[in-house]
C-alpha cells in the first residue's frame, strides 16, 4: 500500500480498515466544536486522503447528530439542528419551525439546499398546534436564557393524530454552544425533553436529560462533563396552557441544574465559591441550602491533595534525617506498616 512513502516497513502495518476505524474513533470523540481541528490532525496522521475521507463520511454524521450541530439555513430563516429526531434520511433534516427540509453536507457542516416539507413529513394540524404553541413559548425562554441558544421541537410519536383521543409525544432539543478556540476553550449545553401527552389520563409527563460540557486546553487539557436527569408532570390542557406549564417546568429544572453545577464546581474551588457568592445573588439561597450537604467547599479537592501538609507548614526538606530515624525506630519496634 502506498501511504505517502514515509511509513516504515514495520511488521505490524495496519490494514486500511483498521486505520479507518481509528480515524473514526478520533473524529467521533472530538469535543464539542472541535471536530474540524481533530479532522485536520487525523488527516495529517493518516497520510492517506482516501482512508481519511472514508472515515470522515461515516464519522461526521454521527458526531453532528450527537452534538446537535446547528447549521444556518441558506434562506436566512434561522438554524436547522442536526438531530436523530429530525432526520429524514442521511443528509436531509426537518426544521419543524419553518416546515422546511434541509439538505446538509455533513463533512463541511453546511446546509446546501432547502425545500418545503411535504404533508407526510409534518404532523397533523391538531399536533402542530401543541407543537407550535410550545415552540413559541419555549423560544422566548431560550432567547432570554442562552445567548447562543437554539431549540427545536419534534413530534416523535403519534404525529398523525387528528384530534383528542390518542397519545402522542414531542421532543424538545435545546442546545447552546460557545466556541472560542483563540482562548483555548469550548463549551456546550444540551438538553433533551421528552414530553408524553397521555390522553386517557389527561396527563403530560416530562422527562429531561441535561448535559453540559466544557473543555479548556491552554497548556493542558481539562474537561468538565456534567449530566443530570429529571422528571416532572402536568395536566393536559389547551395547547397554549400546556405550552406555558411545560416551559415553566423546563425553566425550573434547568435553573436548578445550573445552580447545582455551581455548587459542584464551587466544591472544587473555594476561591470561585466566594466570587459566586459575591456575584450571583440569586443563586445564593441555593448555594447555602446545598452547601450544607457538602460542608466546606474546599474539602473535595483536599481528598486528593492538601494545600499544606497535615503539619500546616511546608515540608522540612532541610531536616529529613529525622524521618529516616523515626522509620528505623518504628521498624525496630515492629510497629511499621
Amino acid at each position, binding site marked *: 500500500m502506498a501511504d505517502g512513502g514515509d511509513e516504515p516497513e514495520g511488521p505490524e502495518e495496519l490494514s486500511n480498515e483498521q486505520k479507518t476505524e481509528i480515524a473514526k474513533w478520533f473524529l467521533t470523540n472530538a469535543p464539542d466544536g472541535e471536530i474540524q481541528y481533530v479532522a485536520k490532525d487525523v488527516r495529517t496522521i493518516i497520510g492517506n486522503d482516501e482512508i481519511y475521507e472514508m472515515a470522515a463520511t461515516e464519522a461526521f454524521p454521527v458526531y453532528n447528530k450527537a452534538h446537535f450541530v446547528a447549521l444556518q439555513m441558506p434562506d436566512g430563516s434561522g438554524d436547522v439542528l442536526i438531530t436523530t429526531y429530525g432526520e429524514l434520511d442521511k443528509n436531509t433534516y426537518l426544521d419543524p419551525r419553518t416546515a422546511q427540509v434541509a439538505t446538509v453536507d455533513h463533512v463541511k457542516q453546511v446546509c446546501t439546499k432547502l425545500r418545503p416539507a411535504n404533508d407526510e413529513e409534518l404532523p397533523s394540524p391538531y399536533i402542530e398546534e401543541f407543537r407550535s404553541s410550545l415552540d413559541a413559548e419555549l423560544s422566548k425562554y431560550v432567547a432570554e436564557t442562552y445567548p447562543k441558544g437554539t431549540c427545536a421541537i419534534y413530534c416523535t410519536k403519534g404525529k398523525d393524530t387528528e384530534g383528542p383521543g390518542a397519545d402522542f409525544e414531542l421532543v424538545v432539543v435545546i442546545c447552546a454552544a460557545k466556541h472560542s478556540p483563540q482562548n483555548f476553550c469550548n463549551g456546550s*449545553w444540551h438538553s433533551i425533553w421528552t414530553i408524553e401527552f397521555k390522553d386517557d389520563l389527561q396527563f403530560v409527563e416530562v422527562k429531561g436529560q441535561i448535559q453540559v460540557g466544557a473543555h479548556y*486546553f491552554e497548556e493542558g487539557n*481539562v474537561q468538565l*462533563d456534567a449530566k443530570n436527569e429529571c422528571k416532572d408532570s402536568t395536566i393536559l390542557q389547551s395547547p397554549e396552557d400546556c405550552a406555558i406549564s411545560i416551559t415553566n417546568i423546563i425553566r425550573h429544572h434547568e435553573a436548578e441544574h445550573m445552580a447545582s453545577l455551581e455548587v459542584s464546581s464551587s466544591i472544587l474551588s473555594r476561591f470561585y465559591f466566594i466570587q459566586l457568592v459575591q456575584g450571583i445573588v440569586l443563586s445564593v439561597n441555593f448555594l447555602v441550602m446545598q452547601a450544607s450537604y457538602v460542608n466546606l467547599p474546599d474539602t473535595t479537592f483536599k481528598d486528593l491533595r492538601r494545600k499544606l501538609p497535615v*503539619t500546616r507548614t511546608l515540608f522540612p526538606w532541610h531536616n529529613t534525617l529525622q524521618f529516616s530515624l523515626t522509620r528505623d525506630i518504628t521498624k525496630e519496634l515492629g510497629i511499621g506498616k
Partner: protein
Amino acid sequence: MEAAMDLMRRISPKESETALSALLSLLPHHSADLLSQVDLPLQVCMDDELMKEFILCEYNRDADSYRSPWSNKYFPPLEDGTLPSGQLRKLEIEANEVFAVYCDQYYEGGVTSVYIWDDENQGFVACFLIKKDGSRTGQGRRGYLQEGSWEAIHVVEVAAEEGGTTRYCLTSTVMLSLTTENKSSGTFSLSGSIRRQMSLDLSIADGHLCNMGKMIEEMEGKLRNSLDQVYFGKTREMVCNLRPPPEGIQLRLPEN
C-alpha cells in the same frame, strides 16, 4: 508528531490510553517520542519481597520487568536487569523514604516511588511519582468523591556540579480526574492533565534531595492552584457564558 500532540490535548483525558495506543499503531516510527511526551495513568505493582506497592514507569522498566525502589529487585524477576550505581542507589533509598513522608503529609495516603539513574553527561535524573486514589472507596478521608485520582510525575534532570552549584531542571505533570454524584445534581466529572517546567541553579550545600524536594513542593503547589482556580474556574466560566445568570447579576461576573 505535532498533529498527534494536538489530538492528545483535545481528546478527553479519560480516553488518553485508547488515544495513545491508536497513535502508536498509526505512527510506529514516532513511538519513542509519543511514549516520552504523553503521560498515561500510572500503574502499580506489588513488591512481593517487602509487600509494598510501587509505581511502574518507563524509567524503572527493563524488558518486561519493573524494578521496585524498595527491594531494588525486578518484578517479574529479571536476571541482570540494570541497577543504579551504588552512590545513586543510596540517594534513591533516602529519596524514597523521605518522599513517602512528604506524600503522607500532603496526600494523606497514596503510593509513591522515586527512581534515580545516571545520564550521559555525568549528572543524573530522578523521577518522583505519586498516585493517590481519593475516592470514597479509596483513600478519600472525607468521602465526597465517587471517583477521584491524582497522579503526579516529576522528572528532575540534575546536571554535573560546577563550582558548588548545579542546574536542576524539573518537568512536572499532574493528571487528575474526579466525579461527584448525587441525586439532585446528577453526575459531575472533571478530568485533566497539565504539565509545567522550571529550572534553577542551586548550591549543592543543602544536598540534592533537599533542592529537588523544594522544587517539587513549590511546583505541586502551583499546579494544584492552577487546576483548582484557573482550569476549573475556566470551565465554570464557560458554562456561565453558555447560560448566563439572570440579568443584572450578570454584569458583576468577572470579564474573561
